[in-house]
């Protein structure tokens, strides 16, 4: 709660800057219109106009909020203009990709921790794999998979998976190696098998490392799903809304898609945060 006021201040400052920027960027078009209509604008009229243009360079926050309200609450969920419908399509790809990425990440991490050969050969390539700008080649992956007959959710989920497995691998390798020599020795004195050591010592002690990685993975997976939607012919999803908006200059639509993606990301990450709190508290790791 101590940081409540500062955060509020910063967010407030962002809104103020946003409004000023909207006025500054949109004023040219407002004056242009007035000139063609042969009327002169007073300062207040100019401000009012910049707040209510149809295709502004930078829409004001309340315009974006209005558009989001219009496309979520007032439209039927099944309508193709509903942001909830588009958001759901993106969300399902995100969640599938996140689940696959987490699974792959944990498997790889277990392999890396238990096999020296895998540690030495796979780990450097896992790191290298992330310097390949996968987002940039996402369109190609989508097109190629489409050509093979894999379409719909899976291609997007594969891109999400590629982005989200990396933080999980790194976090889990660190976490599975977190038990110190004393604890490992204790397990040995109890004559535990490898599997038991894994389930009763290594896995529990990796939990504090797993959840922060999951948060990063979730955010990355959403980005992957959105970029994956860009080349699919702009049919559905938040990414498709972005692309369609940019084709037709519908800036308000772009910003509303962008903000709803942000809200979605915030909700997903917060959900993992709640899960983290519950799990760690029940395991007695959180005071």
């Amino acid at each position, binding site marked *: 709660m101590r*940081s409540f006021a500062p955060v509020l201040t*910063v967010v407030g400052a962002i809104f103020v800057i946003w409004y000023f920027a909207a006025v500054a960027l949109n004023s040219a078009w407002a004056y242009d219109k007035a000139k063609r209509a042969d009327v002169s604008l007073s300062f207040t009229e100019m401000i009012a106009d910049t707040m209510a243009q149809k295709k502004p360079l930078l829409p004001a926050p309340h315009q974006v909020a209005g558009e989001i309200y219009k496309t979520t609450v007032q439209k039927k969920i099944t309508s193709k203009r509903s942001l909830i419908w588009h958001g759901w399509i993106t969300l399902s790809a995100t969640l599938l990709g996140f689940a696959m990425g987490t699974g792959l990440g944990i498997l790889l991490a277990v392999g890396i921790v238990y096999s020296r*050969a895998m540690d030495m050969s796979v780990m450097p390539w896992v790191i290298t794999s992330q310097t*390949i700008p996968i*987002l940039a080649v996402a369109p*190609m992956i989508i097109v*190629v998979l489409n050509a093979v007959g894999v379409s719909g959710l899976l291609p997007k989920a594969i891109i999400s998976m590629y982005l989200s497995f990396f933080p999980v691998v790194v976090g889990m390798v660190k976490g599975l190696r977190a038990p110190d020599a004393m604890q490992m020795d204790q397990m040995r004195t109890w004559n535990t098998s490898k599997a038991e050591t894994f389930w009763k010592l290594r896995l529990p002690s990796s939990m504090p490392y797993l959840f922060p990685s999951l948060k990063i993975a979730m955010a990355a997976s959403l980005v992957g799903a959105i970029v994956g939607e860009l080349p699919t012919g702009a049919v559905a999803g938040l990414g498709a809304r972005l692309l369609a908006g*940019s084709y037709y200059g519908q800036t308000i639509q772009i910003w509303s*898609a962008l903000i709803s993606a942000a809200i979605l990301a915030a909700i997903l990450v917060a959900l993992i945060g709640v899960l983290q709190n519950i799990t760690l508290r029940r395991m007695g790791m959180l005071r």
Partner: protein
Amino acid sequence: MIWIVGALIFWAAMWVLNVQLSNGPRTRITTLAVPFIFGVTLLVLWEGIVRGLQISPILLPPPSAIAVRFANSLPILWVDFVQTFVKGALSGYIIGCGAAFLTAIAVDRSPFLQRGLLPVGNFVAALPIVGMAPILVMWFGFDWQSKAAVVVVMVFFPMLVNTVEGLRAADHMQRDLMRTYGARYWQGLAKLRLPAAMPFIFNGLKICSTLALIGAIVAEFFGSPIKGMGFRISTEVGRLALDMVWAEITVAALAGSAFYGAVALIEKAVTFWHPSQRG
């Protein structure tokens, strides 16, 4: 069939070799050789499966075809590389990281602003900022300026968060010592807190190095002059010339790895005192 069996045998043999190598004593050569062998194995497996199953080159070209295409179109690849990496990504990276660094120093004196900026910055850093690309292309035109702008927006917040975090890394004892020396604010910053922040700053720089390339390439999908890696990828996908696309991916991967490696090398030289560097 021969191709597949051959590739699988090669894979098994290399795996055994790798297990042998990694169970032996750990020297400089083995730590380099093991991942190298693994990479070569992957390439051989890829080549063998593509040839063995006779996968159409329109879907997945074999590595040999990509290498040929790469060698034959070096001039085009170079032009694209300069347009996207040097002009777009690198300039945006420098501007973005520089701006974030200066902002972090500017808010450094106000704990109030810092407490507000950190959660907000963390939040924004997790957002799909790539989505800003169409807007920025609309604002700054089709040439590299808009790509640099996308990169600036993408790298700003991760860098800001890391720098602010780093400036708090020096502990109380050390700060008190500076105070007993009678050091002024700027002296304390230059002699103690900036050096202490370097591991965090380089962490940010490393994260941003991969983000920068992604931002520059993705921004080109929304409009670009007739050169650039993103432009080439999207048009060659349309022409189904996948070997060219893979050649561009190779360039991107090489550039990305080299960029990351360069930052890591500088980090090693600057933060030689940090436990993680002393090994």
